[in-house]
């Protein structure tokens, strides 16, 4: 009953892991299977599965996709629809960013993935097994940080981890102390291990929560805003840690408010708004989906705008000494030459790369922190 259905295998898919086990960055020049890299829109039918393929002949083909939800829906008592028909596919070995404004249903989704909340519709498969039915076999292989850390304030950091480890049926009590010490060391809390958790700063609590997720070797880490409350140095450490874990083959499912964080560490991303999945795919494709911006800095703005229009640049606007437009398909050198030939004094000419934030705003049509 726990075997993946045929529909969840993809014999043609490229392996999600390179032979070394490093997470697959999107290969350069990979054919875009769907225009603008938007691989799956809610309601458009069969999802694209190009990068979640299982290695051929692997009996554990369940590893093809680490998280698969189909039509996942949660309607709370009172009729509020928190999650609406979510089709999420998280490829094995990816660092998967999960984005959305406050109230868009991210947390409800994560809780359904972890078996804490029962869906009112649809299915969830984590590590190839149905949740919440297979929670006892799935969850020991999943480390989770959900809506911030929760600790026993009257216990020391070490005792907190010992307690969480005791709750895991697969955790070996003989190696418990050693594993707790290793986890504390990994998040940089070894020196504060004996302190009562209530004396911890927010950043230290966050680190302890991460340590709890790292008590065992995990196949999947679900991290809900892991850098919340950390100072810049701490954020960097956590990002490095996430990259290390991903390099070891752990799939990381990362929910974050910080778009540049997603852009820095994630290979894939999904965006939710108002309980629905807006888009999911490789980060590079998503960012490419929002076009960049040609920016010419010049004291002769009016003349520059005229030349750019003549060259076929769309959406040209002049603002002070700044002229912007859609990046042209032709060589930028030609654009520069044309401007100079027309006597435009050019101070600078660049194409500003589209950020994920631009893509996000383009997709959701709203500011990032607007509640859905």
């Amino acid at each position, binding site marked *: 009953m726990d075997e993946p259905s045929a529909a969840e295998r993809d014999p043609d898919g490229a392996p999600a892991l390179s032979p070394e086990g490093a997470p697959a960055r999107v290969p350069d020049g990979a054919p875009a299977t769907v225009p603008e890299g938007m691989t799956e829109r809610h309601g458009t039918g069969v999802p694209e599965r190009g990068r979640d393929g299982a290695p051929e002949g692997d009996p554990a083909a369940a590893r093809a996709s680490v998280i698969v939800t189909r039509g996942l829906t949660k309607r709370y008592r009172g009729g509020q629809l928190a999650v609406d028909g979510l089709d999420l596919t998280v490829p094995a070995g990816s660092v998967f960013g999960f984005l959305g404004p406050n109230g868009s249903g991210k947390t409800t989704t994560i809780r359904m993935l972890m078996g804490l909340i029962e869906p009112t519709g649809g299915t969830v498969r984590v590590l190839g097994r149905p949740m919440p039915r297979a929670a006892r076999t799935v969850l020991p*292989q999943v480390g989770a940080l959900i809506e911030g850390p929760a600790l026993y304030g009257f216990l020391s950091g070490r005792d907190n981890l010992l307690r969480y480890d005791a709750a895991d049926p697969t955790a070996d009590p003989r190696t418990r102390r050693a594993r707790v010490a290793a986890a504390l060391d990994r998040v940089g809390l070894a020196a504060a291990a004996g302190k009562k958790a209530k004396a911890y700063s927010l950043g230290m609590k966050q680190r302890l929560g991460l340590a709890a997720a790292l008590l065992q070797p995990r196949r999947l880490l679900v991290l809900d805003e892991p850098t919340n409350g950390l100072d810049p140095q701490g954020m960097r450490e956590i990002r490095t840690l996430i990259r290390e874990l991903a390099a*070891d083959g752990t799939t990381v499912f990362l929910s974050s408010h910080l778009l540049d964080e997603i852009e820095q560490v994630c290979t894939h991303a999904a965006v939710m708004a108002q309980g629905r999945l807006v888009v999911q795919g490789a980060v590079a494709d998503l960012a490419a989906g929002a076009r960049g911006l040609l920016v010419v800095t010049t004291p002769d703005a009016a003349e520059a705008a005229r030349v750019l229009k003549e060259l076929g640049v769309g959406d040209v606007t002049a603002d002070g000494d700044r002229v912007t437009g859609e990046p042209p398909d032709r060589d930028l050198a030609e654009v520069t030459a044309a401007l100079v030939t027309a006597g435009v004094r050019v101070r600078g000419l660049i194409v500003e790369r589209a950020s994920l934030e631009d893509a996000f705003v383009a997709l959701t049509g709203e500011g990032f922190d607007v509640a859905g």
Partner: protein
Amino acid sequence: MSRADLQLPAAARRPGPLWTFGLLRSELFTTVRRWRTLALLGVLAAVPVLVGIAVRIETRGGAPAGGGNGEGPAFITQITNNGLFLVFTALAATLPFFLPMAVGVVAGDAIAGEAGAGTLRYLLVAPAGRTRLLLTKYTTVMAFCLLATLVVAVSALIVGALLFPLGELTTISGTRISFAEGLGRALLIALVVAASLVGVAALGLFVSTLTNSGIAAMATTVGLLITVQIVDQIPQLHAVQPYLFPHYWLSFADLMRDPVYWDDLVRNLGLQGLYAAVFGSAAWARFTAKDISA
């Protein structure tokens, strides 16, 4: 790291046969480490000290304690003759309120407190398993019932031995039993008193699954206890009284008869079992189907 290696940790990790005891040990340890638990036990330990000193002061002139007959907790007039009676007196004094209140606080906090602190979600994704976690919590609350009762009994025994003579004692029926047998009966009474708290423990645990606020669950449980105790005192409501969990609590005194009068003791234990079954099932049904949103 090869793919085969990646699968190893999963395949190698099977639940150890004794892990439930590891969880129980962790639960007991965590409960006893709470400052609140220690404060409750401290209050319970202080009750026999207060009673013992009060009786000692009252009877300094050689007058019997209690003044009139039938006043004060059971056995209080006997304490001056034999310190062992302080154990019975202390249990009779704490059973109507102090002991069940302490149990109500611990039981009410069991699930709701973890939910309020957010630690419940981490225990469940560990994954502790909802049924196992609930059973562990109930076992821990029952262990606390026993611990709380023993704290009262041992404190009373120590105070009784320090302030009053020990020796042979007279049962309610008038027969004499040796001090050793008296100690045995005291232990038996402590066990029966602890078992009398099983019902309120199950009730508290059920209330605890209904809310995400530990304080609300504790207050509700203690409030229910007080209400039930009041209803049990109103003569016009005698029809429902045999079904109230505290109704037969003081039957433990029947263990001091010779021969022991078992009827009410058995009724008490049966009633506690019924409450444990009903509210235990209700707690299970609620907790295993609940959305954990805290």
